[in-house]
């Protein structure tokens, strides 16, 4: 009884952490970008207010849309929550780590993407279809890259379970500097940019037909549906950053539930996440969005880097 | 004692280069170049005499080395350089007269010619494989501007291809040398010596065969590119076609032999270390391939100098093929062929240069009736072509015949038959084109004149040498070649 109760508490803690801080991270990125553009920019907590506002607003649904349209925001939100439960953030091992491993995470992302792409087609608007097709062609290159990058980390640790990977890595700090690891990190970083729809792959702030991919698919959403989808993307970003920081540099992560460890773990986690978020913002601000037909080349580089990472692991050894 | 010889052979071309750099008057440059190449040539004979006495010569640090093989080739190369230097006098004077060449260009020519000679000597005298490499790449660099000499579009294109392809090849050869060094490091006592060919020969049996096999492949491709072995020969027609005639001659007679020398050194080493006919088989294959590749390009050719370039590819193939056969008789034939080919190529390229100057074109169907326009050069041309295609009583017939019999007696029947087939086909093509060029009436009135009599005399002497070699081989020469054959046997 006690055990289950602890488990529920711990999971709730993890969930709450991700839910609550995701908008903050998104706000930090927006603020940094604004600073780069020599603007003051909105405050970092603005996304919370935006979400609250959206939740209060009326929902408008296209008459042609089907049940898919209404279900998808909940589906995407829920799948992202499950991923949030699986990815080690402050503590490892994560309480529900036996639910799934990396492959589950990848498929959960794919699930979300699949439904959003369908929704883009569902509303019958041209923009939606446009976004869906672009998104799918990007995904076809990004998925293998992501898998290879994550597998490199998995092969190093000898397991596909995220918590075990992080645990093993945090106990042997030297392995973090393995060149295969570093290459996998850079590969996964590019994947993050592509998956979360950031410049130079996609512009999250645009609604111009020429340039939008992700935004195109969710163009028709409003009110609470939009809120859920927005929140889910923010959590997705946070999860990716958590993957990047904890799978490759799990410094300071807590291995027990003692208060001190939790404190250190939280501090370390947020530091790393914020640094990564700023880096993402810098990358976004210093690069121009790629023309659409150049995007596959860029993603190919991610694929090759991840591929090289795996090969180097076998050549140079762990 | 040996250091004096080495210094002489290396230092004379260096001195020549430095002096050429300092002076700009045409007469002075001519004298410097002829003297330095002549002195080098004489020193080569001295080297040969010493080597006959002492079999091998080493320098104190072990960087320089000479034996029967290198002494023989040094004579051929320095002799070629000397002949070319002499001929260049007349050639460049005519070009100056025709306003094709101005004083600064003339100076560049002689300067680079001296440097070229130095780089070739560097390769031929090196014991250190690293120096061998440095010298080989240096020969490419020294000749780069010589190939681009006339600065036509096609010349620059040819020079570009030449430098790029040869540098790529040479870089691969460097990897092969590193692999050789790697295999030697574990075996040779002092690591400073692990790059020295003489030290490597001593421990050949202990070198790792697998690594050496891989190294040999890279070296064959690398130095084969320099020699113009197929399929790495693609730079040759362009470079030989565009370069001034004396330079093409020196490249065909000098550079080719220098590259072949590098191949031979490694061949000896690898054959001793690996055995089992690995190196020989590769040589036979590449040799036949070169001859085979040359056939269609000779039969379907428009430009005379490119024709000669493909002939060079063919003859390099012949020599490599003979080396691959591997019997002492074959080695003798190969080395004799080295000499004959060098003389014949110089003769032909220089004569072709005369034809071109008289007619203003290298395209063969534009040249007809040469016998009426430039009788001396035309005769030399047709006789030279007979010589190079292996017609008795010229020298090449003797060396090719030796190689063929070596092929048959050693049991390589099919390759030998292919060999004969290739030679015959090439002969047909050559004779067809040359007779059309030489005989008959000139299409249209041609204003050109022949070279001056001194140059023609020089060419006549070359032809005479070929004739002599076809009839009998002086015993001194036989001795030299036999010495070199002994080195090849390892």
């Amino acid at each position, binding site marked *: 009884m006690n055990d289950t109760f602890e488990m529920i508490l711990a999971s709730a803690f993890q969930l709450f952490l991700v839910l609550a801080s995701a908008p903050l991270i998104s706000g930090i990125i927006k603020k940094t970008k604004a600073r780069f553009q020599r603007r003051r920019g909105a405050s970092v907590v603005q996304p919370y207010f935006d979400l609250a506002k959206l939740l209060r607003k009326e929902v408008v649904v296209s008459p042609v849309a089907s049940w898919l349209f209404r279900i998808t925001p909940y589906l995407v939100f829920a799948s992202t929550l499950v991923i949030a439960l699986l990815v080690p953030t402050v503590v490892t091992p994560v309480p529900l780590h036996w639910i799934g491993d990396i492959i589950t995470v990848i498929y959960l992302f794919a699930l979300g993407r699949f439904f959003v792409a369908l929704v883009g087609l569902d509303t019958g608007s041209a923009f939606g279809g446009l976004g869906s097709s672009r998104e799918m062609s990007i995904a076809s290159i990004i998925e293998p890259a992501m898998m290879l990058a994550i597998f490199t980390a998995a092969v190093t640790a000898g397991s596909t379970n995220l918590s075990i990977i992080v645990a093993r890595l945090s106990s042997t700090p030297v392995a973090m500097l393995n060149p295969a690891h570093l290459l996998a990190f850079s590969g996964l970083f590019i994947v993050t940019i592509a998956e979360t729809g950031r410049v130079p792959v996609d512009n999250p702030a645009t609604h111009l037909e020429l340039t939008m991919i992700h935004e195109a698919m969710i163009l028709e959403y409003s009110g609470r549906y939009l809120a859920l989808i927005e929140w889910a993307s923010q959590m997705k970003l946070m999860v990716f950053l958590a993957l990047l920081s904890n799978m490759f540099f799990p410094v300071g992560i807590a291995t027990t539930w003692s208060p001190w460890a939790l404190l250190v773990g939280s501090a370390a986690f947020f530091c790393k996440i914020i640094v990564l978020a700023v880096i993402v913002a810098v990358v976004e601000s210093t690069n121009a969005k790629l023309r659409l037909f150049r995007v596959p080349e860029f993603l190919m580089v991610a694929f090759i880097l991840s591929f090289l990472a795996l090969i180097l692991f076998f050549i140079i050894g762990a | 004692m040996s250091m004096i010889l080495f210094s002489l052979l290396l230092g004379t071309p260096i001195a020549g280069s430095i002096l050429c750099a300092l002076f700009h008057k045409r007469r002075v440059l001519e004298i410097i170049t002829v003297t330095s190449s002549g002195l080098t040539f004489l020193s080569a004979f001295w080297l040969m005499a010493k080597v006959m006495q002492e079999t091998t010569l080493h320098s104190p640090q072990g960087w320089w080395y000479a034996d029967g093989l290198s002494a023989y080739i040094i004579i051929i190369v320095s002799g070629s350089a000397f002949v070319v230097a002499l001929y260049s006098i007349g050639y460049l004077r005519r070009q100056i007269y025709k306003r094709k060449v101005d004083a600064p260009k003339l100076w560049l020519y002689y300067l680079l010619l001296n440097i070229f000679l130095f780089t070739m000597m560097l390769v031929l005298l090196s014991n250190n494989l*690293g120096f061998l490499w440095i010298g080989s790449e240096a020969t490419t660099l020294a000749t780069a501007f010589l190939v681009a000499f006339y600065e036509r579009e096609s010349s620059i294109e040819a020079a570009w291809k030449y430098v790029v392809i040869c540098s790529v090849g040479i870089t691969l050869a460097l990897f092969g040398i*590193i692999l050789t060094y790697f295999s030697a490091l574990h075996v040779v006592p002092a690591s400073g010596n692990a790059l020295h060919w003489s030290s490597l020969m001593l421990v050949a049996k202990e070198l790792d065969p*697998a690594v050496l096999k891989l190294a040999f492949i890279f070296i064959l491709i690398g130095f084969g590119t320099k020699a113009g072995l197929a399929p790495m020969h693609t730079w040759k027609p362009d470079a030989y076609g565009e370069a001034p005639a004396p330079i093409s001659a020196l490249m065909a007679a000098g550079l080719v032999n220098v590259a072949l020398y590098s191949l031979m050194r490694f061949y000896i080493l690898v054959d001793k270390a690996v055995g089992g006919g690995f190196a020989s088989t590769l040589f036979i294959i590449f040799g036949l391939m070169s001859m085979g590749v040359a056939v269609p390009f000779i039969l379907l*050719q428009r430009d005379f100098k490119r024709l000669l370039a493909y002939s060079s590819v063919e003859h390099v193939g012949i020599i490599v093929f003979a080396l691959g056969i591997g019997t002492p008789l074959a080695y003798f034939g190969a080395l004799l062929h080295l000499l004959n080919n060098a003389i014949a190529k110089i003769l032909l390229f220089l004569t072709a240069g005369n034809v071109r100057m008289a007619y203003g074109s290298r395209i063969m169907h534009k040249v007809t009736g040469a016998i009426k326009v430039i009788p001396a050069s035309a005769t030399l041309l047709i006789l030279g072509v007979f010589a190079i295609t292996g017609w008795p009583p010229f020298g090449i017939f003797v060396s090719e015949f030796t190689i063929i019999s070596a092929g048959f007696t050693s049991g390589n029947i099919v390759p030998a038959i292919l060999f004969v087939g290739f030679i015959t086909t090439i002969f047909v093509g050559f004779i067809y084109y040359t007779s059309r060029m030489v005989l008959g009436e000139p299409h249209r009135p041609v204003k050109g004149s022949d070279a001056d009599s001194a140059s023609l005399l020089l060419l006549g002497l070359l032809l005479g040498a070929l004739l002599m070699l076809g009839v009998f081989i002086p015993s001194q020469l036989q001795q030299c070649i036999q010495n070199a054959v002994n080195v090849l046997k390892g």
Partner: protein
Amino acid sequence: MGIIHLSTIGLLIDIFAAAILVTAVLIVSSRSLVFYIRLFALQSFFLGAVALLVVLGYGETHILIAAFLTIAVKAIAIPMVLTRVIERIQVRKEIEFSINITASLLLCAGMVILSDSVAQSILSSQHGDAPAVSRVLSVSIAMMLIGLFIMMTRKKALTQIIGLLTMENGVFLSGLSITYGMPLIVEVGIFFDIMIAVLILGVFVFRINKTFETISIDSLRSLRH
């Protein structure tokens, strides 16, 4: 030099070698001539760093000069020369390919695998102690192959120079990895040769530009058979 120290040197060498390979791959993925030159400079810098690490870790002081030469010549001087050449001649800075980027990158991945097997065959036959740096051999062979690939599939004259230099870097790295570099005088001679080769090719690029309108290799096709 304790064992711990040696292993960190080994780790650093591994990281730099991987970085060198990455720069080579990024060159293949790039469309801009200026980027090519910058990546090459970075690559040579990493190479010099590897050489310095070999000096520090294994005490082979004769490579010190080679290391400095690599950095001074290949990482600084040659890129400067090449950039000057680009500025002087009006050339479109976009590179044309005969094999597009995506396919090229896949081929490069294949080349890395191939070079690994070649390196294994070289090293496995050597019984006894192969130096720790030998793991880097596969990277060097890959660089040679990628350099050759760049030369064959990119159509600008300047890219051929960079491809050649990349091959050279690969060979130098292979020398470092299995033999700790060749004797000093040989390495210096090799450098000298390369510098002159680049200068000569640079002069030719000028001349090519004067006679042709572009420096694309496609136009150098007038000499056929």
